[in-house]
Structure formats: structure tokens, C-alpha cells
């Protein structure tokens, strides 16, 4: 058998061995669990209702940076975080939208909660807790930042300080 044939057989044997054994040792990259593992994924878009009953969807905010905050009225850290979210919305009115997504409660309860805290950003009612499931929320609050292209840029489990929020959105707001 000539030399080149030996090489060819060797390469084919190696490729065959890889094809046979690789699947048993293949492993997904160890992405973090929960919202922190979301960056890079397209943010799911579906229609919800806001706290006044009007249709609401992420699709309406394409081209803007969106900060989606999942919350519920019974959650003390959610309550603590709300004023900072409003401050963030006020800081970047032309480039950024904050959306509060209420997980599993009635519109009346969510609206009363928002009014009591002086919240002016949109509040959506996710009564079936779909965003909570899709974003793999490990608890409340959870925050997901979606870039202008509709792709998740950052995901956070737990309450954020204003400085953390600003540090996360600043590069996205600046980029076009």
C-alpha cells in the first residue's frame, strides 16, 4: 500500500472515530442559569395587555433600548427598585423605555401599586406568567435589557441599584 493511501485511511479512520464517539462526550457550554444566561437570544415577542387593558408588545419598541422588569406587588425588593426604574426612564426619554411586567396579578392590583409609587412607565399584565417562564426567572424582581435590535443584552436576577442599571444601559443607549 503506498504512503498516500495509508494517510487517507488514517484520516478517514480518525474522522470516523470522531463521528462515532463525539456525541457521547458533547456538552453544551455552561451558560449561567436564569436571566443571566439570556444575552444573545432574541427577546420573545407576543401580545399582552397593559394595566388599562390596551394591547402591548415589545414589537412596538424596536429601535429603542428596553428595560423589562418582572415584578409583583407582594415582592418587597420589587417595590424598593421601582423608583430607580422610573428615574432611569426619566434619564433617557428619547432612547430607552422601561416596561414593568407584572407577573400573575390582576390589572387592578398592578395599577393600584404603580399609582401608589408614582410609576409613569408602561405596566404590562402577564397573567399567565409567560415572560417569567421564558426568561427562566429564578425569583422576583428580574430584569432583562433588550437592545435596539430586539436581542437580549443583559439579564439580572434580583433587585438592581440605579448605578447598576445605568452601567448596563449606557453602552446600549450610546450605540446606534
Amino acid at each position, binding site marked *: 500500500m503506498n504512503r498516500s493511501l495509508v494517510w487517507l485511511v488514517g484520516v478517514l479512520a480518525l474522522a*470516523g472515530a470522531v463521528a*462515532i*464517539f463525539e456525541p457521547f462526550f458533547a456538552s*453544551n457550554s455552561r451558560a449561567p442559569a436564569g436571566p443571566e444566561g439570556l444575552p444573545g437570544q432574541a427577546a420573545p415577542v407576543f401580545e399582552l395587555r397593559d394595566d388599562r387593558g390596551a394591547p402591548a408588545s415589545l414589537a412596538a419598541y424596536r429601535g429603542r433600548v428596553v428595560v423589562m422588569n418582572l415584578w409583583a406587588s407582594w*415582592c418587597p425588593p420589587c417595590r424598593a427598585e421601582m423608583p430607580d426604574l422610573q428615574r432611569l426612564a426619566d434619564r433617557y426619554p428619547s432612547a430607552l423605555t422601561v416596561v414593568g411586567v407584572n407577573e*400573575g396579578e390582576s390589572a387592578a392590583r398592578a395599577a393600584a401599586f404603580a399609582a401608589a409609587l408614582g410609576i409613569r412607565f408602561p405596566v404590562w399584565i402577564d397573567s399567565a*406568567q409567560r415572560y*417569567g*417562564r*421564558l426568561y427562566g426567572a429564578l425569583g422576583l424582581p428580574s430584569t432583562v435589557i433588550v437592545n435596539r435590535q430586539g436581542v437580549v443584552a443583559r439579564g439580572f436576577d434580583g433587585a438592581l441599584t440605579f448605578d447598576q442599571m445605568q452601567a448596563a444601559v449606557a453602552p446600549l443607549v450610546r450605540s446606534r
Partner: protein
Amino acid sequence: MNAFLAPALVAVSMVVSQLILPGKAEYHAGWYNVLLVALVAVAAIAARRYFAALQTSRARLAAWAVVAGAVICAAAGVASGLFGADTRTYVGAPGQRMRADDLGGSLVFPFAEDAGAEVALERPLHRPIAIGGNARNAGSFILRARPREIVFVEARDARGNRLTITQPTGAVFLSPALLMQQRQTIAGMDLPFDSFAVPAARRIVKAVLLDPQQAAMLSQAAALPGKAAVLFAVDDENDRPLPHAIALSAGGRPAAAAGLILQGTVATYPAVEAVSSPALVAVAAGTLLALAGLAGTLAARRPTLRPPPPERS
């Protein structure tokens, strides 16, 4: 038939059967894998003797192809038998993205409301695979969807306000879908069981799934003929039982317990069964090679033998 053909073809057939009839415990047994290796070894030894008698390179190539095909198939079969995981069922909540490292990717479970949507396997550098009732090959696994019963729950306060459902011990924290993976014995019956929390009301609720007959046995008044039911038991946040805290929700009707209005709707939702199998590409390549070699060997009906050496005078 040449002596090497039979063991080689039996080895190929055994591995192909692992794809056609996946999930048999024998495939992971030591004797099965030893048998595969032994068949290939016998084929190789018998073929070697046969080669010596062959004159044409075409006939030699055909014989080599049969043995090589059998070796590739057997390697795939043994790899699956020794390294492949046992049959496993992935149970996910609607809307959940579940990491499945064994499968090299993530399983994406559709929302129950999305009619016709199937669970998908997403893997890096591969197209997503939709997993339905028919078996789908995913490299070293055969996947199929198996329907099972889950329960969608709704909780409201006494004024009818909807309340958040959480599952601190479940696969998905914010989900109103109970996967009912645990079992509990009640009145001698072994029943699917799950639990959830209603943080706004500081309540923990246990839910037991009952078929229509079981529901009728437990409560004739609350059961509905032909409808599955969910038995709720409400505890406080420290797991202490409360008075008037047991209620039966049949056919998705609301039931009152310990200040909550609870509603349980039974639905069928797919789980994914993953059965280890030999690598499809390797088995296909090995089988084709073996069959091509078999055809070549049979075409050379009578092998041309080397002429006997001239007698010494």
C-alpha cells in the same frame, strides 16, 4: 457464502436493529457488546485468510469493504452500548428552555396555548429538531414526545383578584403549570402530586391529580362525571395546615379553600423521551460500505484462486 460474510453481516444487522428498535436494555449489556466485538474479530480473521486466496484487487477491495463496514457499525454500536446514557425522560414546563447536556443542547418547550407547536432541541451548529410523536434521530439519541398530564392552576383572593403562582421547588419558579412528577398515597391510592406557593396570600398549596373515578370516590358531591379533578390542600407559609383548607376542583371549576379560590385544569402536554442509539452517520456509512462490499463479493461469484506453484522436477 464466504466465511467472513456471515459474522460481518450479523454484526451490521445487530447495530442497525439498535436504530430500528431503540431503548432495549440488552444494548447496554456486556455480553451484547462482547458479541459485537467477537463477530467483527471473527470476520476480520476469516477475511484475512480469504484475501490470501484472492487474485484480483477488485475482489480484495470488496472483501475489505465488508469488514470495514462491519467494524464501523460495531464501533458505533459498542460506543452507544458502553457510553450511551440510559433512557431518560425530560419533563419541562410550557415556555421553559431546559438545558440538556446529554443531548448537547437545550430543549425548548412551547407554550400550551400554541396549538400544534412541538418541543424543539436546539444545539450549537445544528438545525433545531422538532420533536413530535415520531422518533427523531439526534446524533447519538433517538427522541420522541410522550404525552403526559399536567395541571394549570389559577389562584384568586376572595375578591376575585388573580394572584401570582410560584414554584420555589419546581423546575420553573414563575409557572402556573404543575408538572405532577411526585407521587403521594391517599386512601390507598398512589397519585401524582405537586405543590406551589401563593406569596401574596402567604400560602403553600399541595395539589393531587385524580382521575374521574378517584375523584368520585373521594367526593361524590364535588366530582364531575368523566372529568379529572385536582384536590387542593392549603397550608400557611410555614407548612402548617389551616382550617377549611381542602377543596376539589373538578373539570376546571373553581373551588374555595382557606380564603383562596383555586382552579385546576388538567391538560396533556409532551415530555421528551431520549433513547441512546449508535451515531446515525457512522451506522449509515458502515452499512453502505458493507452492502457495497457484499455486492462486489457476490459479483465475483467464484473467486479466482492463485495458480498452484509449479512442481519441482
